[in-house]
């Protein structure tokens, strides 16, 4: 029976070498003793080295599991390596009992590594005259053999200082930018560090005594690590005092506010923007609209999207409602539909700067949608009649102050808002209708052009939008 004797240092490399030889020779796992103790029979020498290929996932798993303290790790890993010769797919099957066992070992090593990154506490050492770099050292007691694995992390993080991490089994030193790993040492006497008192002050005060959750603390910060963490010494006193502090907060009567408080509040509040008392101008109407709470849509949307353009525009173009982009930027027609409109206006010889652009409804109405795959979107929802009717107040004000020669309604919502009838864009488009607010013409909404699945229909609608914009331009000329 082959017996593998692993050395005290360099056992990772020794295991890899032995396992490679044994697996290449197809030696069954039950015939290998990994504990270095020969049985009744004289040990056989290891088979010769031969090339052996294994999946990348095995290399990663073995590197991790080898750091575990369990002496069985060598035999378990070899068992998997041997099976890989015949069952290539086993790495992808987490339900296999051997895989599950090794994965559990790996998980324990990963957790211990993570906790080492979290719980190592450096103390500053006195400087030396010849070394301009600051010097630090830490004593740490991990569960597994993880120092070599973790040392590069500390080297990347604490690159401008010299440091040493000592543990019972291994040590890592980073001196003048050179990282080295060696055998462990007994616990050293490290000098006191004044920062530990400040750190404990922070730890004590960031704690909320009204919400004690000891199990959560202990499961994430296992007690076995506490002895090398200075702040944990404060925990008994923090707990002993917690209840008294909460009772004191509850029973304390409300105090009288400092004398200056009311004055400060009054001054700040009086300077806050608020809706104007009267609406006599277009600017006042816009300012008032920013504070609109006439319907419930304002709670969900980011902000009011008021119209924009010259106050004396001869043409006013009205869309349905702001979309996602418009809502975030606070400007009408700046999203994909806005691009379609801009292109059509360009073809019709209309500049954005000469037109008042606005929407029938001034707040974005949407339904949030999140998917298990991380998708996060706001799905546009059509405003209902009540919402359009309520928002008509603002559209009327825009028409009243701007007095456009023509208002172009894009899509059914704007058509309804301006003429009281939604339907029949196909038949009604391109014609001037008289309304109380002045002459109105209807056309397609650019988002209809984006949405309609049939390319032919989309192109036709696009051409008709340009045509209607031309008519409108001629009408107001």
């Amino acid at each position: 029976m082959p017996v593998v004797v692993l050395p005290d240092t360099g056992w990772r490399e020794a295991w890899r070498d032995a396992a490679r030889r044994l697996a290449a020779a197809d030696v069954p796992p039950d015939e290998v003793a990994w504990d270095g103790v020969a049985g009744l029979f004289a040990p056989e020498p290891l088979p010769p080295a031969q090339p052996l290929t294994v999946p990348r996932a095995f290399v990663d798993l073995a590197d991790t599991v080898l750091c575990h303290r369990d002496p069985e790790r060598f035999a378990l890993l070899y068992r998997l390596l041997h099976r890989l010769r015949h069952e290539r797919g086993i790495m992808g099957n987490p339900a296999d009992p051997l895989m599950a066992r090794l994965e559990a070992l790996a998980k324990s090593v990963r957790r211990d590594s993570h906790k080492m990154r979290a719980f190592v506490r450096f103390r500053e050492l006195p400087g030396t005259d010849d070394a301009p770099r600051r010097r630090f050292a830490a004593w740490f007691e991990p569960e597994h053999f993880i120092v070599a694995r973790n040392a590069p992390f500390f080297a990347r993080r604490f690159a401008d200082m010299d440091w040493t991490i000592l543990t019972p089994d291994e040590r890592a030193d980073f001196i003048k930018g050179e990282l080295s790993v060696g055998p462990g040492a007994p616990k050293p006497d490290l000098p006191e560090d004044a920062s530990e008192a400040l750190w404990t002050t922070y730890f004590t005060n960031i704690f909320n005594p009204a919400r004690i959750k000891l199990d959560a603390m202990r499961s994430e910060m296992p007690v076995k690590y506490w002895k090398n963490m200075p702040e944990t010494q404060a925990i008994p006193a923090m707990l002993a005092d917690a209840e008294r502090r909460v009772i004191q907060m509850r029973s304390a009567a409300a105090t009288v506010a400092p004398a200056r408080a009311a004055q400060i509040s009054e001054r700040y509040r009086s300077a806050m923007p608020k809706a104007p008392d009267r609406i006599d101008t277009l600017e006042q109407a816009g300012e008032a609209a920013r504070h609109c709470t006439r319907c419930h849509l304002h709670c969900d949307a980011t902000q009011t999207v008021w119209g924009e353009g010259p106050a004396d525009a001869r043409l006013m173009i009205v869309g349905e409602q702001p979309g996602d982009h418009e809502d975030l930027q606070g400007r009408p027609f700046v999203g994909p539909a806005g691009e379609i409109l801009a292109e059509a206006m360009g073809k019709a010889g209309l500049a954005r700067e000469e037109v008042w652009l606005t929407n029938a409804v001034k707040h974005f109405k949407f339904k949030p949608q999140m998917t298990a795959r991380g998708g996060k979107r706001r799905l546009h929802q059509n405003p209902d009649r009540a919402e359009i009717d309520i928002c008509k107040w603002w559209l009327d004000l825009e028409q009243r102050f701007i007095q456009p020669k023509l208002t172009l309604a894009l899509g059914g919502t704007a058509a309804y808002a301006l003429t009281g009838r939604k339907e029949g864009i196909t038949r009604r488009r391109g014609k001037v209708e008289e309304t109380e607010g002045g002459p109105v013409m209807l056309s397609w909404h650019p988002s209809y052009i984006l949405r309609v699945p049939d390319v032919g229909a989309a192109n036709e609608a696009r051409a008709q939008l340009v045509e209607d914009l031309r008519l409108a331009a001629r009408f107001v000329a």
Partner: protein
Amino acid sequence: MAGMTLERKLAILSDAAKYDASCASSGTEKRDSRTGGIGSTEGAGICHAYTPDGRCVSLLKILMTNFCIFDCAYCVNRVSSNVERARFSVEEVVSLTLEFYRRNYIEGLFLSSGIIRSPDATMADMVRIAKTLRVEHGFKGYIHLKTIPDASAELLDEAGLYADRLSINIELPQDESIRELAPEKRPETIRTAMGRVHLTREASRDRSHKGTRPAKFAPAGQSTQMIVGADRANDAAILSTASRLYTGYGLKRVYYSAFSPIPDASSVLPLVKPPLMREHRLYQADWLMRFYGFEVDEIAGVAPSGNLDLDMDPKLAWALANRADFPLDVNRASREMLLRVPGFGTKTVNRILGARRHAVLRYDDLARLGAVMKKARAFVSVPGWSPKGLIDSADLRARFAPPAEQLQLI
């Protein structure tokens, strides 16, 4: 305040900062100090300690000052409170951050502040601290800046250059509550600032032929916090606000913070025991929305009150109310449906999908793959296991719900 020790200031200004739940340091770009400076961020966050309230300490979470001209009823630092005040200098914050960092106490800084003089003046000081750390000291660790919603857009833009994460607290789930309890805050400017961070961040991504790259502006994204239990909003309202914030502004996280007693409380808000279980259920529901494909109405619609069941997790409550969808054949069900099984997490579901390509899964396999079978068994079938009458039994809920608490005579 003259003569106040650094230790006293630290005590006051960390005590004042603890009502912000977030301490995350994950999800930012990869950086390290091999080319100069100090510090690193490698994707995963690290919690360097845990306090007895079960919360992680990852960052030095402090206020620059707890002087404040605002009067938010729920806040210990409101102008009308008599709490002891302090103020750090820029140098003090920078030095505390670096010295704590060098001893491996923290991942970086989470800086918030009361509002002094004006929103712009306060924000400018905060930005100066972040800039000093980054530019003068080459600090590569994590920086989270709590931004002041009414500060100018230019300051917000500059903050995102130095900070990994920006956050703006929505504070309360409903606009009326914000206007009532935080009269100086305006819900629309809070949302507009979030929208601006979102747009600036998206615009900062380099487009390459391989797709989008990580954002340079606030690479760890933005987050927010809602106080639970200070107003009358039910869980349905809280979760629907959260889903609007996630979808509208690409938030990484919404934090829920059970309203808890504060020193020198306002008479407007009653001090109650913080609703910790409610907060916990909201986090579970939040997870279901983000990673399990559940909609708000599905989770919050189980009970007519619009509140989550405090006795059991929201997925189990949903499954009990939708028993017709179960038992589920684990060997054939879609990923979407597997995610809906109580006791199956996302990792378990991924492992199931991987493992069932190799073999037909049986009951013992599911436990090995990480499923919590105490919950899942009533909702799944595999060869050799069927819940039979279990799924229809009238007392299924009672099997999961904790026994009713005995009333006590006093």
